[in-house]
């Protein structure tokens, strides 16, 4: 028998069957519909596509972090045997970017390189090796510019500018928002806490390297297969840069070998192979090396942050003021949204009556940061939850009890006008307290052993699309086959999280068929209606609701036809076990294929559509588009640590985590998302860092990635993973399909602060930054021993000339969601093509 000491259990608040629902697919642990393909190696990732006559592309990348391109000479490369084409920036000059407000990228840099790894030329050749060799034959004359290596230097060095747009100098974006008078709130407090934290950047590290294959198809149109999480946005970028009608471009998102946000931007290599395929009229392929994946990045922003929070003696928060200084790297990417997100979700867990947020994102000469699992919110969540731990200690309260006292209520509208859905954080905290034996462990374990608790919330899909418009965020078409099969067409993109399984399970449940009777055509801009993509934890709720609507419409057609044939009122018909039958007399009915045939005979070809548009947000102020969501997931976690007194090594033996998921559509996959989040959170908490260093002076002294390899960028292995007790708290939210909320990102958020809080419980030192490395623990322990402040973390937050804050009175002060000192904005949705957030 196997050892089951690490057995993980999933329990549920309410068994759906006990509530009078008879669900056959939803809520049942199942093999995912694409499971067989994945375990046989037949899932076709982008680099698995081999087409006849394929040419191979390699990119020449800048060795300098910041330089002007004086001249590029490609003649020697072009003369190299086997080389078909060499492209430079002038061949693709149109600027693009994921957000409408930061169209600041070019597929190949025209005259300005902004980080080591920025591409300046592309070689397309018969063999990959030939293309690689020819890169050495391209002569680029660079004029070196001052390197901006971090945000404080960016603030102090307005020239040279990394970009010619932004707030000023090298400041990309300011956000300043105030919801109620925070100074007054803090003045009413019994205790005021001021804490500074630093959250290091990290990268997604998907095991699949980005790859793309482009062809000019037989009709002369462009088709590209690519490892992208957002085929719709790639479609838009290609149309813009290639100056082609979108109708002549087909983007097929191949299943992603891991995404985590890192494949959400349109990428230069995708545009380059598309252009080359059109010019050469043959397939062109690129697969990035692992080093190049580190240069694509778009990962976690490094954030310096300062929290100033006032609390009453009973723990009630009277006001909070958060400031962030964000290292954006060399391009905009999702950064404007990230800057807003860093201040958006503080109010969703605990009641904060007055709240002020000031954020500043700077450009630096490093690979661009962007959205990584939790997008913009893990950094401030770390600070907020560690500060709460300090508050609880000062107030002599148990940190779990403190949190239970100050939780925000279900369906509340927060100070910054986020409308919440179901909130089951109380139950989450109670569960983790119970299963972790918290009451017998907190402050009671022997020296070196500790427990820490933290909570969090996350979006279930961004409430507004990146390009503001009134159209649905997700669409689904269903085709009903006479043989009883159902085909689903949807733009949703499978990145491993199980988006195909979500669609199949919902359709199968409604129609009473098996998920394996469903065929999926997803992630293809030609075949399916638009789904905005696999980001912001939006697929389960948005694509799921679209699928639900399409399936219900199909069910209604089938029911009408069967009711007529069987002479049963259609309301009494039930769809289950591949049959449509009288719920009062189950023998009376027809098979599902017969039902389809009856409906087709009566109505003609059976096809239905469904779509989903999120509800309007009450936030009407500028910036209020980032943060709204149809509903939010909640998570609580207790992490146990053992800290080695001599080495400072932090070992995590056990994590207990409870996630308010609404309903788990497939508990096997839901648990996998929770455990995968715990894993990734532990990586960020303990070891992962996107770190940079200077090459020696005698070389170029360039600012380079410290370790762009899987070996040196440390991530947890199978030996590092602790026991995880996963509790899924199921209280269906009426906004989600069958009550489901997100699970892919939220469970990551409490892990990092819970680790830091546990380290404090274990050895009495505060590590106010991640990753919590042995070196930092040892320094703090040495300070403790010497009688100094037992803490490792940033000691200051620099002076920044913040703009005047937009003042938005919170709902309880009579606010209507508008700022009182800005232009009146009745309906932000009506403003076309302005920034918005993922």
């Amino acid at each position: 028998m196997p050892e089951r000491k690490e057995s993980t259990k999933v329990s549920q608040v309410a068994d759906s069957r006990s509530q009078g629902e008879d669900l056959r697919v939803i809520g049942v642990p199942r093999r995912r519909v694409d499971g067989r393909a994945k375990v046989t190696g037949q899932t076709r990732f982008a680099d698995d596509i081999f087409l006849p006559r394929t040419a191979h592309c390699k990119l020449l990348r800048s060795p300098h972090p910041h330089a002007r391109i004086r001249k590029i000479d490609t003649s020697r490369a072009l003369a190299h045997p086997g080389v078909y084409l060499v492209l430079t920036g002038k061949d693709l000059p149109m600027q693009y970017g994921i957000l409408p407000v930061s169209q600041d990228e070019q597929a190949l840099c025209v005259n300005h390189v902004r980080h080591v790894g920025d591409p300046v030329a592309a070689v397309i050749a018969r063999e990959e090796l030939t293309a690689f060799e020819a890169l050495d034959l391209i002569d680029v004359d660079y004029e070196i510019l001052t390197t901006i290596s971090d945000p404080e230097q960016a603030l102090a060095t307005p020239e040279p500018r990394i970009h010619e747009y932004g707030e000023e100098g090298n400041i990309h974006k300011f956000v300043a928002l105030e919801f109620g008078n925070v100074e007054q709130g803090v003045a009413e407090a019994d205790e005021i806490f001021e804490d500074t934290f630093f959250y290091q950047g990290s990268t997604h590290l998907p095991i699949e390297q980005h790859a793309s294959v482009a062809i000019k198809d037989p009709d002369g149109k462009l088709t590209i297969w690519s490892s992208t999480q957002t085929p719709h946005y790639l479609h838009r970028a290609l149309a813009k840069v290639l100056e082609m009608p979108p109708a002549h471009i087909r983007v097929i998102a191949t299943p992603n070998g891991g995404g985590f946000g890192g494949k959400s931007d349109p990428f230069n290599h995708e545009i380059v192979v598309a252009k080359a395929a059109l010019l050469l009229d043959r397939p062109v392929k690129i697969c990035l090396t692992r080093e190049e994946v580190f240069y694509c990045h778009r990962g976690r922003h490094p954030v310096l942050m300062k929290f100033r929070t006032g609390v009453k003696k009973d723990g009630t928060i009277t006001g909070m003021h958060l400031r962030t200084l964000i290292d954006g790297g060399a391009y905009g990417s999702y950064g404007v949204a990230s800057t807003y997100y860093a201040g958006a979700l503080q109010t969703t867990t605990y009641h904060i009556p007055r709240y002020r947020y000031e954020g500043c994102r700077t450009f630096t000469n490093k690979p661009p940061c962007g959205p990584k699992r939790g997008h913009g919110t893990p950094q401030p969540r770390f600070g907020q939850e560690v500060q709460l731990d300090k508050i609880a200690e000062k107030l002599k309260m148990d940190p779990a009890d403190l949190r239970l006292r100050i939780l925000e209520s279900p369906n509340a509208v927060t100070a910054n006008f986020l409308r919440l859905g179901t909130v089951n954080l109380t139950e989450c905290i109670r569960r983790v307290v119970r299963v972790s034996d918290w009451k017998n462990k907190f402050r009671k374990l022997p020296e070196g052993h500790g427990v820490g608790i933290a909570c969090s919330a996350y979006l279930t899909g961004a409430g507004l699309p990146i390009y503001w418009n009134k159209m649905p965020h997700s669409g689904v078409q269903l085709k009903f086959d006479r043989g009883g099969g159902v085909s689903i067409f949807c733009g949703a993109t499978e990145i491993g999280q199980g988006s195909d399984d979500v669609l199949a399970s919902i359709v199968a449940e409604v129609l009473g068929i098996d998920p394996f009777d469903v065929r999926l055509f997803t992630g293809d801009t030609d075949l399916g209606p638009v789904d905005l993509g696999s980001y912001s934890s939006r697929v389960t709720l948005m694509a799921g609701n679209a699928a639900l609507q399409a399936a219900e419409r199909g069910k209604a057609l089938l029911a009408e036809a069967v009711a007529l044939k069987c002479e049963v009122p259609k309301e009494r018909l039930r769809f289950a076990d591949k049959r449509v039958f009288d719920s009062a007399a189950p023998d009376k009915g027809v098979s599902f294929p017969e039902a389809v045939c009856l409906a087709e005979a009566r109505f003609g070809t059976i096809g239905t559509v469904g779509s989903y548009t999120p509800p309007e947000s009450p936030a009407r102020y500028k910036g209020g588009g980032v943060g709204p969501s149809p509903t939010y997931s909640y998570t609580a976690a207790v992490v146990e640590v053992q800290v080695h007194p001599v080495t400072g090594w932090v070992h995590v033996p056990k994590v207990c985590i409870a996630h308010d998921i609404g309903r788990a559509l497939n508990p096997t996959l839901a648990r996998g998302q929770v455990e995968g989040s715990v894993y990734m959170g532990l990586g960020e908490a303990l070891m992962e860092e996107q770190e940079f260093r200077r090459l020696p002076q005698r070389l170029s002294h360039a600012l380079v990635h410290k370790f762009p390899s899987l070996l040196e960028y440390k991530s947890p292995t199978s030996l590092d993973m602790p026991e995880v007790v996963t509790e899924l708290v199921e209280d269906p939210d009426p906004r989600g399909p069958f009550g489901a909320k997100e699970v892919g990102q939220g469970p990551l958020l409490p892990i990092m602060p819970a680790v830091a809080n546990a380290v404090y419980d274990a050895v009495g030192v505060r590590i106010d930054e991640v990753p919590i490395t042995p070196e930092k623990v040892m320094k703090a322990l040495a300070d403790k021993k010497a009688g100094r402040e037992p803490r490792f973390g940033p000691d200051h937050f620099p002076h920044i000339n913040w703009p005047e804050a937009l003042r938005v009175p919170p709902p309880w002060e009579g606010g209507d969601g508008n700022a009182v000192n800005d232009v009146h904005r009745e309906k932000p949705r009506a403003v076309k093509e302005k920034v918005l957030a993922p």
Partner: protein
Amino acid sequence: MEAERTAQIRFTLNGEEVDVFFAPYKTLLEVLREDLGHTGTKHGCELGECGACAVLLDGKPVLSCLVLALECSGREVLTVEGLSADGRLHPLQDAFADLGAAQCGYCTPGILVTAKALLDANPHPTRDQIREALSGNLCRCTGYLQIFEAVEAAMIKIAEKKTEA
């Protein structure tokens, strides 16, 4: 000249003898994927760091990105494509699919063959032995626990089958 740029070997791939011509500098990974159309074996670094390209060479797990194809003449190579038999999935494959051990599925082929080598050598590994055996295979999605459970479930299934036989 052309002769020097092309190598030829014969080896056993998933139980079948194959002949293949390829550029002599190519790794086993490249020959499998590019010259033999066996794309089930993946790559995550091509530097021996991630374990995604693991295959069995004479029954032992190797990183195919670090093995020159030329070294494989006359030897036996097993990839994920060779795991199922008689139209049925290997118990490891069934367990991985049923128990959530494959999310994106990219590291899965390498982990499956590594787990097979473990169970072939040690039919009843402990959880710690499974952890150790898979410690060279990075998975970014699952957090590994459902992988461990799937290996244990397959182990039981295989033992039951042996008892029946």
